């Protein structure tokens, strides 16, 4: 089953639904004299409640970041942009922001390239041990961050490598590659590989085929992977916490400010900004990667 969620594909979707004997969703069914609850309603309410549980706690950060008080407490005192002003005037913060952007950019490119190598070989070649190798590459997702962090700390210490933005970048690449691979595998599986074969049959070399056929077809996935891996690196704390030298990334800077109660409103403003920024990037990435791929293809993440 492909593409049933694409917006322009309503007829096909309807046909597929009819074929499966399903009906359009009805949370409320109309009766002669008004509305009454159907069996679907409790589930719908639960889903709304669940989304509220997911989102509302996080929304307190932006709410209090505009509050004109040093205390993060109700009742709200009035609207203020003071904390955002503080934020853009803090030199240390701006430096750590620049560091985070540098690391995030490098990690995004590096892990997407590595993810593309892996995704291409996993989807286009028949290899023994493919399952085991995929599981191996996915391993950083399930190893606790603290263990990866101290392992990398121990080895950089043993080979005498100084802690810097480079060590943070390497650690972030390790945890980003699995995500890049997953995103790209579902994209590469999503388009017709006959197109690649046609190009090869018509005399293009494998490199030109890759650049002229595979890359243009895979670009939504590649862009999604770049955006997602950038966000992972930008938001990652525990690895950066262990592997930061003198230069901090933004989450490490936030952590260092948490022990000063007077800095709390400024941290809230910063957190709110980061959240809104990440939400935006991630939404774009998710739309890019899920559109036209079909909701259930690919993997769990």
């Amino acid at each position, binding site marked *: 089953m492909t593409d049933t969620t694409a917006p322009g594909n309503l007829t096909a979707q309807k046909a597929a639904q009819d074929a499966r004997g399903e009906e359009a969703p009805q949370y409320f069914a109309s009766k002669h004299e008004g509305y009454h609850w159907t069996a679907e309603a409790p589930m719908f309410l639960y889903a709304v409640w669940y989304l509220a549980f997911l989102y509302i706690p996080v929304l307190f950060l932006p709410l209090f970041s505009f509050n004109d008080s040093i205390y993060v407490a109700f009742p709200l005192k009035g609207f203020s942009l003071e904390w955002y002003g503080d934020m853009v005037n803090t030199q240390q913060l701006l430096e750590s922001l620049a560091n985070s952007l540098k690391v995030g950019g490098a990690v995004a490119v590096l892990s997407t390239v590595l993810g593309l190598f892996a995704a291409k070989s996993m989807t286009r070649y028949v290899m023994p041990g493919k399952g085991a190798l995929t599981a191996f590459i996915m391993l950083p997702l399930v190893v*606790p961050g603290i263990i990866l962090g101290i392992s990398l700390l121990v080895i950089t210490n043993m080979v005498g490598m100084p802690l810097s933005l480079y060590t943070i970048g390497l650690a972030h690449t390790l945890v980003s590659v699995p995500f890049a691979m997953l995103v790209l595998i579902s994209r590469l599986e999503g388009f017709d590989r006959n197109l690649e074969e046609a190009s090869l049959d018509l005399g293009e070399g494998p490199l030109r085929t890759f650049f002229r056929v595979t890359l243009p077809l895979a670009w939504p996935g590649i862009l999604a992977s770049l955006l997602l891996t950038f966000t992972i690196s930008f938001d990652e*704390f525990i690895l950066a916490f262990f592997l930061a030298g003198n230069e901090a990334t933004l989450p490490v800077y936030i952590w260092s400010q948490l022990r000063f109660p007077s800095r709390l409103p400024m941290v809230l403003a910063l957190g709110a900004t980061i959240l809104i920024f990440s939400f935006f990037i991630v939404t774009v990435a998710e739309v890019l990667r899920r559109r036209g791929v079909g909701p259930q293809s690919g993997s769990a993440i």
Partner: protein
Amino acid sequence: MAVTDSARTVAYGDTRKSSLIFRVNTLFLRHEWIRGYTLLSPTLLVMVMLMCLPVFMLVTYSFWTQNYLDIDRTFTLANYEAFFQKPIYVALIMKSVRMSLFCTFATIILAYPMAYFIAFKVKSNKLVWLILITVPFWTSYLLRVFAWKVILGYNGVVNSGLISVGLIGEPLQFLLYNPTAVVLTLAHAWAAFAILPIYVSLEKIDRSYLEAATDLGDTPSERFWRVTWPLSLPGVIAAGLLVFIPTVADYVTPRLVGGTTGIMIGNIIQSQFGKANNWPLGAALSVIVMLMIAFLVVVFIVTTTRGRARSA
């Protein structure tokens, strides 16, 4: 299948080719898996260098000892003896496992109906729902945990909110800095990890099985327990592992909302690399945690798959 670089070299005739290059080319042409592995090798190499090698060094480190500022590199089991001699470490690991299991159960129980709803009930806006539940998953873990500190704090959202509407006279002390706060925060922070695998396994279920069950006279609840639930178990297991493994050794959440009673093993490991400055002991604690996790995962998978085989 794809023609490779080497194929073109052969086809167009490379005048400089030695017999060795020629033989390598033929090997590439003949075996698809060699081409696949070659393409995969840069990624594999990076993963080995950044994961296997460091973890191997961590294990090695755990057999050394801290000698004031130096590391004594003679092989010893002293760190492991220290672990078993101090009951506090064992107790702390047990407590971490308990808290993490609580959090895993809570996350799955809360996530299952949501995943079920998206897989079976949402027909037209599935993409929107999927994006709504995945977006929080990608955003800052630190900030999501920090939000709970703001909510549950002594002067936080809940306390000040209840005071300002006059329900309580003074702040409730029991909200923050205890194991319950840690479990609640973890359950919220890892929610998306549980929904997605469960959703995928539900979405994969062939709808004709459900129709067959109904046609053969199953009530909706019988149908759920005899068809849907067993078929969604792989997703539930994956969700359990994805939440349980990282939360056992979590550092950020117990540090921010756990206080002294909500402390977990991750905090002790970190302190060995920080204030306590005993890296080898910290390494040994990490190795023990890893073995513990591996053991529990194997037990978990064996029992759940056995159970499934019996009911099938």
